[in-house]
């Protein structure tokens, strides 16, 4: 008679966490940067069709790293939840906090349940308020933990290196051009094994950038910046 191996709960959780972390580390980073008029999301993404950053609701955006099919289904679920809530109550009653909560519960439940494989994703949920002080940015990890982020946040492959660059160069209350410049430079920042910087320039065709812009007149504040707009905004800073 074969006896099943005993695996301690600690070990089980650690294995699952390692599994998820490895999956997430394979992808490129996504940064979120707070600037004067809202929140900017940027990522290196050669695909024009498969987005990492998307609109959820009027003032709420979603960004993710990891397995596309997993975060895509979370994104769609978020849109459904938000639209459903907005229809049955009012548009103002849809908040990033409740959405982040729903995501956290979902990810947490999947992570700790024995049957399902943990999701290999990390998520940003951002919401802009009337002024910069009211902006909210949540980062959710594969196990359902929620982090309330301020100023800037990074997730994905080289999160520590990109984060270190932002720590050094981030300025509060910057305009869009400055914030975009810092975010893109941070994404291209890397170090080799000897600790020397080996920065590279990411072309505008390789970037996926979107903002929640509180200066937009429309109620839907989410706006994508296409290659052409990116070039003109980035050109303005370097000039």
């Amino acid at each position, binding site marked *: 008679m074969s006896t099943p191996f005993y695996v301690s709960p600690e070990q089980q959780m650690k294995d699952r966490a390692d599994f998820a972390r490895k999956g997430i580390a394979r992808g490129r980073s996504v940064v979120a940067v707070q600037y004067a008029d809202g929140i900017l999301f940027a990522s290196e993404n050669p695909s024009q069709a498969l987005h990492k950053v*998307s609109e959820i609701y009027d003032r709420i955006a979603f960004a993710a790293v990891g397995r596309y099919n997993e975060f895509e289904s979370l994104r*769609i679920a978020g*849109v459904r939840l938000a639209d*459903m*809530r907005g229809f*049955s*109550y009012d548009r103002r009653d849809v908040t990033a906090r409740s959405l982040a909560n*729903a995501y956290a*519960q979902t990810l947490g439940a999947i992570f700790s349940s024995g049957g399902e494989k943990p999701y290999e994703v990390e998520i940003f949920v951002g919401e802009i308020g009337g002024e910069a002080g009211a902006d909210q940015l949540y980062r959710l990890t594969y196990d359902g933990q929620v982090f309330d982020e301020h100023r800037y946040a990074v997730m994905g492959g080289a999160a520590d290196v990109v984060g270190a660059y932002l720590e050094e160069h981030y300025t509060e209350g910057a305009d869009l051009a400055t914030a975009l410049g810092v975010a893109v430079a941070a994404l291209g920042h890397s170090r080799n094994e000897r600790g020397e910087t080996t920065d590279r320039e990411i072309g505008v065709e390789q970037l996926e950038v979107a903002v929640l812009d509180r200066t937009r007149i429309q109620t839907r504040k989410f706006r994508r910046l296409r290659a052409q707009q990116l070039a003109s905004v980035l050109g303005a800073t370097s000039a």
Partner: protein
Amino acid sequence: MVGDLPGSGSLPGARLPASYLTPGSSSFVDLLSTHAPDLVPGRRPVPDRAGADIAPHGTTIVSLTFPGGVLMAGDRRATMGNLISSRDIEKVFPADEFSCVGIAGTAGLAVEMVRLFQLELEHYEKIEGTTLSMQGKANRLAALIRGNLGLAMQGLAVVPLYAGYDLDAAAGRIFSYDVVGGRSEETGFHAVGSGSLFARGSLKKLYRPDLDARTAALVALQALYDAADDDSATGGPDVARRIFPIVHVVTAEGGARLPESEVTALAEEVVAGRLVRPDGPPARLEQEGGA
């Protein structure tokens, strides 16, 4: 599972319902009929008695195209039987960035239908990452109207007018509907609601295919004035209360409501003209342009 009833408000902290995470339709109406069928307008039991006079009715909407866009205007009156139930109701709404919808018929049902229609377009756009075609949008609205057929038979009909700028065709387009959801595309101009007969007659005489946006708005206001002149359920410009029609303009740059100051100026021009000639600008008897 917690949060099975998202329509009635899933508690914060509840897990996303499993069905939200399964791939499915991009239609919000489909989602609503699965999760909160009681909120779908067409699903409610139909009352067994006619009740046309129990709820406010909205009246006249006009729409016309001009080179580079389309505009829609609506008067501000809602009636309930022989009473005026509202003098400042809004009956023209943006449906999405490039289209707008105006409502005639039972106001309460129509406003709910517009809300659902707006969300239907937005939901599709967010899920699919692209917008529906102009015909696709017009067909979705037809489906919503069809869902209201039972109530329409009891006198609670909703008859919207849909107009928008078709980016593919690079032109403004107008779609009209009947109570059973039959959709037809109109060329140039159209009007719906109780005063629409008079408005259409007026539009016929004043419409030119080469109007600019400002003149087109003026034509719309003239048509609404003519509707109000002969139809008791259509409200004219209320000079005393400063209540003027709502005008929504859609061009390739997107749609926006004409600012109140501009509408006021246009409406005052119309009223001033009517003080001189109460029947409005005369149409020329001979054909224009010689030839």
